[in-house]
């Protein structure tokens, strides 16, 4: 059951999903594209977590499941582990990946518009980069949410991209 897929195919597919959902299927209702992509990610995460937990013993608590996501699950998907895991011990976890593979090859056009805006140019460039790449993170958020909910942990996952190519995923467990 374990076969391999070319990584560039996966990256192209994910980029194309975002592009076709935002500009094609939901062109007149762009706010519906994000939940739809996240739902696709949810189903994928559900199936992947079932497959990757097949040969290992079950989890005894939430922390074990999150650690599985950070180590085994992430290394199956992205060939590396999560670089930093933080928790507040009250149901919130922050998973930080210092070089997220699916975003590593994305660049944003740095040319600044001359509209006489008083905003700091570097902040504007960052803002545009954040907007463009934010859409690409719904799919991984959905994958994490699907995997955790299959392991019995209902949660909400959001992504934080304050400094690319590093990105953090914030997991909030619903009590």
């Amino acid at each position, binding site marked *: *059951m374990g076969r391999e897929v070319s990584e560039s195919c996966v990256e192209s597919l994910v980029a194309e999903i975002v592009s076709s959902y935002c500009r094609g299927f939901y062109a007149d209702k762009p706010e519906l594209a994000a939940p739809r992509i996240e739902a696709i990610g949810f*189903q994928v995460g*559900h*199936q992947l*977590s*079932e*497959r990757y*937990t*097949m040969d*290992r*013993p*079950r*989890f*005894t608590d939430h922390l074990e499941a999150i650690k599985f996501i950070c180590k085994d699950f992430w290394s199956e998907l992205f060939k590396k582990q999560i670089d930093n895991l933080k928790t507040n011990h009250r149901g919130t976890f922050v998973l930080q990946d210092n070089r997220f593979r699916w975003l590593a090859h994305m660049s944003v056009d740095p040319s600044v518009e001359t509209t006489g805006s008083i905003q700091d140019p570097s902040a504007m460039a960052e803002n545009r980069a954040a907007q463009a790449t934010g859409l690409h993170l719904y799919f991984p958020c959905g994958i994490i949410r699907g995997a955790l909910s*299959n*392991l*019995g942990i209902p949660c909400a996952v959001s992504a934080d991209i304050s400094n690319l190519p590093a990105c953090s995923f914030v997991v909030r467990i619903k009590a």
Partner: protein
Amino acid sequence: MASTACFMIVSKNDIPIYEAEVGSVPKKEDAAHQHQFILHAALDIVQDMAWTTSAMFLKAIDRFNDLVVSVYVTAGHTRLMLLHDSRNDDGIKSFFQEVHELYIKTLLNPLYLPGSRITSSHFDTKVRALARKYL
């Protein structure tokens, strides 16, 4: 070698998603109801035992006359339950592992809604073939 065996898959919402009589003894009608009843009654015990261990294969967890219930719990808390009268633990463990793989393949089908009944006749045929091989 005649053996009675009744196999059931219960999802994590406690809904049975697959049932089959896989023994080699020709089944009698009331025996089938009784087997279902025994398996359902064992669910409470599985619930308690599942939290005590991190292994997947919980061996014989309940007895009824000379029939034994063995359970295999997956990480997604789906329970594969087998009611049998043989004592072949290794065969049963291999049977559970193969059915687990079959179940994952079913889950990978994007048209399959997780938690709904498994109606594929292909799945049914394969489970019965595995039962003949291992039990």
